[in-house]
């Protein structure tokens, strides 16, 4: 016991005397916390849009005009040729191009199908997807107004197409707007009418657990996870191997100390530091980002404690199998990137192929981020995070056994 205590004391003395390590432990997470949530934002706030109007009709002008009233679109004006548009898109001057065919208005009034071409720069596929979605919404909205203002017999196929496209792309509950639906279709019941009557449906979304669709609510807990992982894995992986490099470990290895004593003396200080960092992270989360823990705090701390054990064990395992700090740094970096990208910290895991999901069963971070999201955002109880807790506990036992066994006092 006295041996472990003196080792803990030694480790703390060293941490607090090492300005570089201190800044890694204190400054880096704080900076990450203060900057990253404001930058890692999937929300598209500005879309540059340009138009090619081959029709030059009242309707095409009206549609173009309706883009101006939207906050998100910045109109880059009318272009004269496709070539000009290509050039602008190449140089990132515009994100979207809307092209009206000639005789657009005429076709509408004649009830003939017509097509508005929307071209998006899909280098950023999220932006392109969201952009074309908005364009559809605006054109669709205009068409519905247009349809309402005109007699139903003037409905063009294009409008119908627009409307159905819209309803395909959005998931919604029809029941909610049933009243409105029956209003607009009252004149002619849907079954008896050809061409089909566009149904006017307003979709109103409610996002559970993150009502404002605030990306910070996703990002901030993610950063918390990264923080705990970095402290747990990175710092410990470097610590033990550093002793190998400077030779102090040899001096320790000739003493009668037991290897579990030595490893405990290393783990406890970093475990405490990790928990302290996590606590500080929760406080920042609450007072800077206004996200408070919805579920039980002791439960959250308890599972974090287990997760930290997994990461500490992994860190020590890495540092006992590597020769120098450079090696262990590369291993940690590699694992860290794999963990983050697969775990769903910043990207949803739902779209991943099956094999990726299988790999994720080995990824402690993917279980932990689930727990974090569930407890912090949803306020889940223990039952709904039990599976993750069990998996993390098993991982903690396995990896720490591995760490103790791989740490050799005497080499062969």
């Amino acid at each position, binding site marked *: 016991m*006295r041996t472990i205590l*003196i080792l803990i004391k030694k480790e703390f003395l060293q941490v607090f005397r*090492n300005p570089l390590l201190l800044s890694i432990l204190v400054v880096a997470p704080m900076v990450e916390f203060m900057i990253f949530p404001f930058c890692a934002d999937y929300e598209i706030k500005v879309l540059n849009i340009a138009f090619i109007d081959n029709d030059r009709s009242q309707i095409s002008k009206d549609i173009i005009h309706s883009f101006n009233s939207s906050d998100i679109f910045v109109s880059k004006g009318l272009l004269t040729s496709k070539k000009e548009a290509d050039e602008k898109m190449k140089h990132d001057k515009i994100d979207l191009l809307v092209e009206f065919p000639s005789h657009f208005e005429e076709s509408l009034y004649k009830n003939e199908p017509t097509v508005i071409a929307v071209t998006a720069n899909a280098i950023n596929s999220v932006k392109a997807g969201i952009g074309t979605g908005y364009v559809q919404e605006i054109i669709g909205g205009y068409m519905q107004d247009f349809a309402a203002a005109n007699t139903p017999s003037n409905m063009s196929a294009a409008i119908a197409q627009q409307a159905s496209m819209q309803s395909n792309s959005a998931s919604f509950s029809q029941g909610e707007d049933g009243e409105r639906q029956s209003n607009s279709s009252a004149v002619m019941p849907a079954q008896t009418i050809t061409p089909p009557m566009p149904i006017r449906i307003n979709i109103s979304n409610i996002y559970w657990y993150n009502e404002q669709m605030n990306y910070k609510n996703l990002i901030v807990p993610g950063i918390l996870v990264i923080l705990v992982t970095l402290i747990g894995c990175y710092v410990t992986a470097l610590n033990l191997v550093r002793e190998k490099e400077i030779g*102090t470990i040899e*001096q320790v290895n*000739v003493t*009668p100390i037991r290897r579990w004593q030595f490893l405990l003396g290393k783990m406890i200080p970093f475990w405490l530091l990790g928990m302290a960092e996590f606590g500080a992270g929760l406080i920042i989360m609450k007072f800077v980002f206004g996200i408070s823990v919805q579920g039980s705090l002791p439960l959250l701390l308890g599972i974090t404690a287990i997760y930290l054990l997994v990461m500490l064990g992994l860190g020590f395992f890495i540092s006992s199998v590597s020769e120098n700090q450079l090696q262990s740094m590369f291993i940690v970096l590699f694992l860290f990137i794999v963990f983050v990208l697969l775990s769903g910290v910043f990207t949803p895991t739902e779209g991943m192929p099956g094999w990726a999901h299988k790999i994720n069963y080995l990824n402690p971070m993917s279980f932990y981020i689930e727990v974090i999201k569930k407890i912090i955002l949803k306020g889940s109880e223990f039952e709904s995070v039990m599976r993750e807790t069990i998996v993390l506990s098993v991982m903690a036992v396995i990896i720490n056994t591995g760490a103790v066994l791989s740490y050799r006092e005497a*080499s062969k």
Partner: protein
Amino acid sequence: MNSIEANQLTKKFGDFTAVDHICFEVREGEIFGFLGANGAGKTTAIKMMSGLLLPTSGTATIAGYDILTQSKLIKRNIGYMSQKFSLYGDLTVFENMQLFGTIYKIPRKELKERIMDSLRELEMDAQANTLVDSIPLGWKQKLAFATAILHRPKIVFLDEPTSGVDPIVRREFWKLIYQAASKGVAILVTTHYMDEAEYCNRISIMSEGQIKLIGTPEELKKQMGVDTINDVFVKFVKR
């Protein structure tokens, strides 16, 4: 009783034989010198005897304990000073001694007394709270030795303890070695300095993993027909 008895101790790294069937013994209170060029196998031999490295074949008993089966008991009875300075530079002199003393389970109060005594002997009591990184190399080496004998081991292994140290500190260092030996501690020391070899009770000259010559400095000089150990070494190398 012999403090160290090595019997056909051998270490191979792949095809390379670092230590080749060495046999020797060191008595209590004896200062035994390990001489040899770099790569002769001195450090490997020391590492095997102090439990840092497992031998490929052969065995040794240290303080009466077998290195293959009783390494925990051996560790309690030896002190070790590696070639590389290996106290914690970011801890103070006192903290380092306290750390290692505690690991050896020296009772708290006694430990403090022992540390103060040994610092007084080294005339380093003023530096007790100085970070080890900021004291000169010679003092560091003396400190490392004092730390290695703090738990009063029966045997101390010193791997090139005086390399890079000025002659005055070297002489002081050897005074410390003599002091320890006079208390019955067996000392196994490796060195490059031939004048230091003269201070040893017995020396062995290693080459290619084997002990080629062994005896007291006087015996070796007589055997080779020269006046100094330096000449013994030169003549041996030329042979």
